[in-house]
């Protein structure tokens, strides 16, 4: 049982403040969805937590089980249990998925300890079977020339292998057709359980038909402005984001 606490977080890109005081607690076993219009800071939030060097955290904190991760490099945060599923995963020519995942596993071992290759492949293949991914997939270079669906499948496979405590899924549904969306949703649902907390970042309600969240939050202008259960997502789908904007304007008027 773990807890990810985001405390009054402020994030800037260059001089420009994007996230302006966001607070959220995610416990293992919970699936939280953050919805909101474009340009409201959703992707910035996930990249800042994962440690992207272009994003500056100007104040606030992010803690895993009471320990701040903000002084850590991106790779240390990953080893501490954070997994960012990218909206646009990078292509890594010449590095096979198998070697990439192996390096990621090796990085989690103590200095001087060597990965057990046969146990690694056994585990890799069992995860692939679980996610219904063809074994030939792992000899391909990471995301190199992949379709949108293949890239997302690759993200899900990495997530399954790395077994994070918290997965931040950044607009995982963008640009996916319904079959690809289902692959992603099936993957997340398969891994969902008492050892994993999930933060789903999405623009559309569509993904939430497949991954049913425990909590739904609306993000607007760098803050969470409304929280509720899955019915909030349906309300947003029916009424659009203008409804939230009007409510906020009325409150601040």
């Amino acid at each position, binding site marked *: 049982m773990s807890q990810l606490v985001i405390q009054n977080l402020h994030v800037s890109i260059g001089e420009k403040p994007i996230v302006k005081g966001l607070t959220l607690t995610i416990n293992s076993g919970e699936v939280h969805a953050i919805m909101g219009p474009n340009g409201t800071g959703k992707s910035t939030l996930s990249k800042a937590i994962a440690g992207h060097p272009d994003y500056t955290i100007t104040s606030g904190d992010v803690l895993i089980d009471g320990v701040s991760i903000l002084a850590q490099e*991106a*790779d240390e945060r990953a080893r501490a249990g954070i*997994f960012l599923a990218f909206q646009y995963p*990078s292509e*890594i020519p*010449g590095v096979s998925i198998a070697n990439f995942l192996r390096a*990621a596993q090796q*990085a989690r071992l103590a200095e001087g300890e060597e990965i057990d290759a046969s146990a690694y492949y056994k585990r890799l293949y069992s995860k692939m079977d679980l996610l219904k991914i063809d074994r030939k997939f792992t000899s391909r270079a990471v995301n190199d020339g992949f379709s949108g669906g293949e890239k997302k499948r690759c993200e899900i496979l990495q997530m399954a292998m790395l077994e994070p405590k918290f997965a931040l899924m950044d607009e995982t549904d963008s640009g996916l057709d319904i079959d690809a969306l289902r692959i992603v949703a099936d993957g997340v649902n398969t891994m969902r359980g008492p050892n994993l907390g999930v933060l789903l970042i999405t623009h559309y309600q569509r993904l939430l038909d497949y991954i049913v969240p425990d909590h739904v939050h609306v993000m607007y202008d760098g803050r969470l402005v409304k929280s509720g259960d899955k019915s909030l997502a349906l309300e947003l789908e029916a009424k659009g984001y203008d409804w939230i904007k009007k409510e906020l304007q009325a409150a601040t008027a």
Partner: protein
Amino acid sequence: MSATTLTAPTTLTGSFTPAAFAAHLASLPPSLPTWWLDRKRAAYARFAALPLPSRTDEMWRFSNIGTLTLEGFTLPGAATTVPHAPIGIPKAAKLVFANGRLFSRQVLSPELAARGVIVDTLQNALVKHEALVREHLLAQPPKLGSPKFGALHEAFLADGAFISVPRDVQLDLPIGIFSYALGATAAVFPHTLVIAGENARVSVVEYFGSDSDDSAQFAAGANDLYAGHGSQISYIGKQDWSHRALSFQSNSTVVRRDARVQSLNLHLGARQARHESLSQLAAPGAFSEMLALTVAEAGQEFDQRTLQIHQAPNTKSDLLYKNALRGTAKTIFSGLIVVDPDAQKTDAYQSNRNLMLSDDAEACSLPGLEIQANDVRCTHGATSSRIDPEQEFYLQSRGIAKEQADELLTFGFFEEVLNRLANDDLHEALRTLIQTKFKK
């Protein structure tokens, strides 16, 4: 000491004095043909007369001329041991040279020998296969700026490898040639001559290594690849000399009708390494694929000069040289594609890609074209780039530390070249060699 030695222009010959040359000639077996000894004497005369490259020499543009030296080297004696061979893949035959002398060998199977395949020393071949050697040994004049070092090689070449695969014979396993320089100031002159007869197929893996990374050695090597009608030659050269060595290597490839040659040179060692590679597409349908990978470390200079000459119609050449530079390393790539007037339908490609892993490294690129035919396709280009920060973050976000992430991305950068190899064992062996240098 005689008066001639005292007055000889030592700056032009350095350690390779007339007396040293006389001693070298005296050390050769008496059975060698006269024409070869005459050629060596003529080569020595050229060497002794030619100046060292100068700053104004266009063929040496960007090269560090001040660090070229012929002083302080010795012609070493026979060796009693050689380092462990680093490429443990199955081979059809093997020749190991230490300080220019045959040290050990793995002979061909009786079946291959019976079919006329020859893997022997040059000294033996000069006697037993005189006509073939005379036709092909150093037959192409040096065109890439090193007539002095070419002449020095020919003058002091003691022994090397001779490989001949006759018509219609195809070897499944590669032939391994190992050349070691042993001793703190040893000078070596390795040579490999490969002749593929009509429709023959042969693969050669050559390794150049030293006893220690601290030896201030000297190497002036060369190889000749001759691909007869319809034949296939695959040549892999791994230059892993001491990091204090000064190295010159010249490759000459002649590709006849419908033949194809693939060469891949891996450059790891030496403090300063000049590599000149010439491909002549001599008859229609000829194809030469020229590949190179360089891992350049702090203080090393790798100077690569290439020439793709299309002499006949419907010929193809494809050059891809990739360098990864660390620390204060420097690389130079100067490549020229020449298309003769009647070489219509030439398809020539030339690409140099540099991955800059340090702000202090320097990569110079001089791609060039000289086209005299009007119906050709020639493309060339050079790029220098750094590690992409988004790729680096992607790897880091999976828990891989920055240093390992950069290493993986660099190996990925090299894979494009290694993937062109048909032999998986060789691909793996080369990858291991590169990784070893990275982890040093």
